[in-house]
């Protein structure tokens, strides 16, 4: 049971983490209207 739980964590954590970071960066870019990339000239304001 513990083994299955560990495998699930290994499979789901990377996706959850990636999705969370993507959401945070998208939120910041829309909120501020600026790209989070250093040296960027793209305007993200919608």
């Amino acid at each position: 049971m513990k083994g299955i739980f560990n495998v699930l964590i290994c499979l789901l954590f990377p996706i959850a983490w990636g999705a969370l970071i993507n959401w945070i960066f998208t939120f910041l870019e829309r909120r501020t209207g600026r790209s989070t990339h250093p040296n960027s000239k793209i305007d993200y304001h919608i």
Partner: protein
Amino acid sequence: MNVDISGIPVNILGLIGLGCISGFLSGFFGIGGGPLITPILNILFGIPFPICIGSTLSRTVGTSFSTVLRFWKFGDIDPKLALMIVGGNFVGIELGVYLLDWLDKLGQVNVGGQSISALQYYLQWLFFGVLITVSGLILIESLIHRRKGVHRQPRGLLRGFRIPPYVSFPKIGVRQISLPATVYSALVIGVFTGLLGIGGGILFVPLLIYGYGVETHAAVGTTSLIVLFSATYGTITHAMRGNVDLWLVVFLLVGSTICAQIGVIANQRIESDSIRFYFAFIVLIVAGMIGFNLLRAIYG
């Protein structure tokens, strides 16, 4: 003049010299030098593999920090991509360290009529395989490049995966890529980082360029931040198992700090095609050293 590293007397000047060679390589080729230093520390100085791996990762934290600052100034780092894939990468590192522990528990194997450490034997084969593959791929790539003459930005093999959700990194040339393909490929590289102490220039840069289709400068810059994260996490995980020797880290860092600048100067005077060719040649020499050591173990 010796220093005691996990019960083995090691010559200090030899360590500084090896640090110097690794520093020159990192300045010259823009890589950390981990895949080359770790087996050399083991073969030439007789330091156990787990100590070599943990200490090399710790040294990488120091060297990659200054690289990150330099690339950040040029705007070559994409923090979103780096942060997004470290989650999967950390899981991979944990799996790699777990595999290392498992190999250590295997004890001894009988090779060529003599009993040697299973960890030592299997890790040397793994290093040999990785280094031969990497040098072969670099040689093929540089030959293709020479024949075509013009460098074209690869489209990115992993962009072909159609598994949602999708993410985009417009500033570094990636319009749309599958999130699972992105994070699981970083997880696989994490296994190599935890198990062998490698990952940066030798695995992540090719993944970003040929796998994700990231522009070359951004790939190298973003890799430096990923390496800083993964080396820090790898150092903590290995340190908790007692695999980091501070003296080893200090002497390697002293040598590499001094000689990195010489490597950078040498880099400016040689064409990039020749640099890749020399790099493949050096990787082949180290692979040859490991191969010779393995043959000696098998045939006595």
